[in-house]
């Protein structure tokens, strides 16, 4: 029973604990045993918080015995990318350098909120150094590996989050997404991933990368678990200066409302040009299932991607400038050289990129007057092999690491909410994701569409069949 629950959803685990079919301690112990058994192959966890998890599970069991409300996540395990502060641990952010930082004094806001809703934190997850990565490789901790084929990338930078959820170690993991770092591992590992609207969820207690583009959000094996964890993390946090003054609108109450009446279109132009046939075919599958015949253009998407690229270089370099001067040798060379290049990008380019942001935002908002949901590939291809450094897109050989986010960057550039959904093709070992994109603050609509697709078995996120 416990093994079946671990392969299922957080929702099902919480329900089983609430009814007493299983205890929170049994789930925590089984989760810790599974991490012990599988993490060596997956490279998902960098720290396991076993003692804390068991204490939290015992508290939940005690609360149940006393008849208290256990919360919507009652006893469901979760883990977080290692850029989230966990009290008592240094926040690595995938780096060697940060291991010298003092232990965090408090948990990140969203961890505290998930635990307040009954979740049980079981550890911290591998990630690309300082989140400047789309591959899931890490020079210090080794790569996270794709559970569906260990020789392939998880995608990054939330690579450990992808490996942990697809490998059945936890039903939900948190990641961060600056240019695609939730949506890329969701695509490569065959998961549901939610990047909320910029300014929606608190980033307090997370190590930044590009503050004007950074988002946090969940990866899960069901749309329902995305909604469950997203709802638990909602709420104002005055310490995050980017947080918008918006009411906390829960997504779960309308999750099963279906797609009737929603105007859905697929993005053409830029989003069809540089994709390989597997990505186009995945969007075809979703569009067909949703009866979305319309193709619309998001004008300026190529420039939006360029602008996001430049802002990332400049803001990332500014954040790490002192570390580059003092500890250059302790960086992953692949990350260091990109950051050094960022220090030399002319200010005029960065200013032009910021100006374009407003223009592109206006173009997207105008498009959303006429549609509710846009469909686009999440990645240009399925997960490359771990050692692969280049791929050919649109007839051009390109570096893998900076270019996997071709289709995610224009969308996060203007902070739109997106759910990545996993599409499988018969005979293929690896999945690929499609972005369900909504207007600002309409996470509920993107989640509804994902849920409908899941109910119709168009998309699915099985645990990888690891031995």
């Amino acid at each position, binding site marked *: 029973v416990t093994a079946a629950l671990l392969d299922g959803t957080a929702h099902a685990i919480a329900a089983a604990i609430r009814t007493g079919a299983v205890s929170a301690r049994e789930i925590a112990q089984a989760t810790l045993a599974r991490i012990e058994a599988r993490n060596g192959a997956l490279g998902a966890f960098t720290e396991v918080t076993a003692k804390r998890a068991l204490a939290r599970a015992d508290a939940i069991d005690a609360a149940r015995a006393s008849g208290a409300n256990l919360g919507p996540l009652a006893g469901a395990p979760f883990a977080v990318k290692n850029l989230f502060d966990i009290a008592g641990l240094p926040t690595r952010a995938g780096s060697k350098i940060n291991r010298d930082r003092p232990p965090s004094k408090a948990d990140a806001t969203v961890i505290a909120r998930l635990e307040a809703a009954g979740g049980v934190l079981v550890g911290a997850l591998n990630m690309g150094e300082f989140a400047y990565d789309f591959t899931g490789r890490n020079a210090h901790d080794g790569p996270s590996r794709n559970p569906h084929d260990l020789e392939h990338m998880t995608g990054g930078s939330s690579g450990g989050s992808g490996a942990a959820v697809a490998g059945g170690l936890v039903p939900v993991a948190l990641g961060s997404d600056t240019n695609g770092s939730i949506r890329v591992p969701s695509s490569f590992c065959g998961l549901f991933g939610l990047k909320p609207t910029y300014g929606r969820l608190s980033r307090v207690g997370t190590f930044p990368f590009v503050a004007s583009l950074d988002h946090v959000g969940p990866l899960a094996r069901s749309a329902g678990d995305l909604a469950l964890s997203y709802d638990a993390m909602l709420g104002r946090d005055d310490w995050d200066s980017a947080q*918008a003054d918006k009411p906390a609108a829960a997504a779960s109450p309308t999750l099963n409302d279906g797609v009737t009446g929603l105007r859905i279109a697929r993005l053409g132009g830029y989003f069809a040009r540089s994709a390989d046939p597997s990505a186009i075919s995945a969007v075809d599958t979703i569009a067909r299932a949703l009866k979305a015949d319309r193709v619309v253009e998001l004008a300026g998407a190529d420039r939006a991607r360029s602008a996001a690229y430049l802002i990332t270089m400049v803001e990332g370099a500014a954040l790490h400038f002192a570390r580059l001067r003092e500890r250059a040798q302790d960086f992953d060379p692949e990350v260091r050289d990109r950051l*050094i290049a960022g220090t030399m990008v002319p200010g005029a380019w960065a200013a*032009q990129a910021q100006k374009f*942001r407003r223009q592109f935002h206006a173009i997207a908002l105008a498009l959303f007057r006429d549609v509710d949901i846009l469909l686009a590939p999440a990645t240009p291809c399925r997960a490359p092999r771990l050692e692969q450094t280049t791929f050919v897109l649109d007839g051009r050989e390109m570096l893998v690491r900076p270019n996997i986010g071709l289709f995610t960057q224009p969308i996060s550039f203007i902070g739109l909410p997106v759910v990545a959904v996993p599409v499988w093709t018969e005979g293929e070992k690896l999945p690929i994701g499609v972005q369900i994109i909504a207007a600002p603050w309409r996470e509920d609509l993107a989640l509804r569409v994902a849920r409908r697709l899941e109910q119709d078995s168009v998309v699915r996120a099985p645990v990888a069949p690891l031995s």
Partner: protein
Amino acid sequence: LTLTPESRAQTIAHLRIAAEQAERLLSVPFDDRQEPAPVFTP
């Protein structure tokens, strides 16, 4: 900031990519008074 010999080739390669990206953006005509000091709000 010191650019060591082992970083030189990759740093130049990344700057070349950045220049390609910038070329796309610099051709966008902006009026001088159009958001001269951008502040992003979603």
